[in-house]
């Protein structure tokens, strides 16, 4: 009985927090539309990490990802007045980021593959502590990360963005369809093809 109560309570709290966050975000968006840069920078603080990581996994270069992230937020700031308040800000922001990264990838000369070797190493305390406690585990983890990032390079930009949004941003198929502005069936097809390629690449990597 207590467990059920605790579970209900935690769900209610989560929902309340979610609602509070949504209303807070809506207030920031409204402030940004009035030209308040401080409100917009609060939105930047909230969304800069997922947008940066999306750019990083799409573009595979830290400097370019930082540049792209800055451009995404600049584009969002310029176009915030066009954003409809009844829509979801995250969907709109991810759409800008996805389109921007995709167009950057298309502009790249063919055959250019940038590497993230060593550039994605974080400085967070948890990772440092884990590395200190278990260097072997850390080594294998880094190795696995590197393989996954290398495998992601073999995906087409359209497949890569869908994989990114599904697995790293944990969006639903419907949300992804809104972001990439494609039908649901197209989104699923791109995801499953991408998974197939990842499976083949990671299996080959394991075989070596």
């Amino acid at each position, binding site marked *: 009985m207590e467990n059920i109560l605790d579970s209900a309570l935690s769900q209610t709290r989560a929902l309340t927090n979610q609602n509070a966050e949504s209303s807070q975000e809506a207030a920031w968006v409204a402030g940004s539309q009035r*030209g308040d*840069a401080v409100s*917009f*920078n609060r939105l*930047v*603080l909230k969304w*800069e*990490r*997922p*947008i*940066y*990581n999306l750019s*990083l*996994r799409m573009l595979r270069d*830290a400097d370019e990802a*930082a540049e792209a*992230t*800055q451009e995404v*937020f*600049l584009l969002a*700031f*310029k176009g915030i*007045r066009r954003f409809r308040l009844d829509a979801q800000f995250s969907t709109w922001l991810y759409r800008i980021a996805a389109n921007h990264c995709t167009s950057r990838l298309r502009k790249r000369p063919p055959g250019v593959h940038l590497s993230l070797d060593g550039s*994605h190493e*974080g*400085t*967070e305390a948890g*990772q440092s502590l884990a590395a200190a406690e278990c260097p072997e585990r850390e080594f294998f*983890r880094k190795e*696995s*990360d590197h*393989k*996954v*990032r290398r495998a992601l390079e073999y995906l087409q930009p359209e497949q890569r963005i869908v*994989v990114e949004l*599904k*697995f*790293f941003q944990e969006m639903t*198929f419907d949300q992804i369809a809104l972001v990439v502005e494609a039908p649901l069936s197209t989104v*699923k097809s791109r*995801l*499953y093809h991408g*998974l*197939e390629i*990842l*499976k083949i690449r*990671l*299996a080959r990597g394991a075989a070596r």
Partner: protein
Amino acid sequence: MKSTCEEARNWVPRALMSDLTPREEQALNAHLAECSACLGEQQLYSEVLSQVRAVPDSPVPRHFFVYPDERSFSVIEFLRGLAPGWKLAASVVVLTIAVLGGLMAARLQFRAEHGVYTFSFGRPLPPAVPVRNSAIEIQALRAELTGLLAARSNTERAEWINALRQQIKESNRYGARQQQQWNAALANLETRLNDRIEDSAVTLTAGMEQSASNVFRTLQRQRQQDLALTRTRLEHLATRGELKEQETDEILSTLLQVARLPEK
């Protein structure tokens, strides 16, 4: 529902994404219980998903704040911020300019040919003048043109001469006709004049004769009257006996001389 390996392999990733219908999921589970290959495929997909999901996020290298100066002036945003009345006025102005521009563009014609640019507004473009670069072509054209001009000139000259000859013939014929007419008229006039002259001569002669005979008759009548008078006087004188014989004889001789005048 029994499924094949091909179907199962299509279902495996979808199952991991919770994208199967209950019936499909049941069929897949039944197949995986029997097929180790497909089960291995499922495990492989699971590992892939685990590896992908385990990739951590990277921390941001810096903050990506934006500043008000970075938002440059945008005409579209300015227009969006206008009051509805001003938006309507701006839309009308833009539409009018667009319509006028379209009309102008529709009437404007442009042609670029051999480095010559020709513009025309409202009127059709003048025909393009073909440009020839070859000197040989120019010479050949010149010779051809000269020949054509000479032939045309000869043709025109011959036509002109023929026309002139025709006109001369016509005028000659006309002149001859006129001459005949004149001749006929003159002959007619001469005849009439001759007739008239003759008539006049006849009339004149007759008149003269008549006059002469009248004069003669008149004279004769007067002479007779004078003679009668003289006789009367002589008789009177003789009766009275005043005249001299000589005088009387002279008078008689004179009277006789007068009486001897020939009668016409």
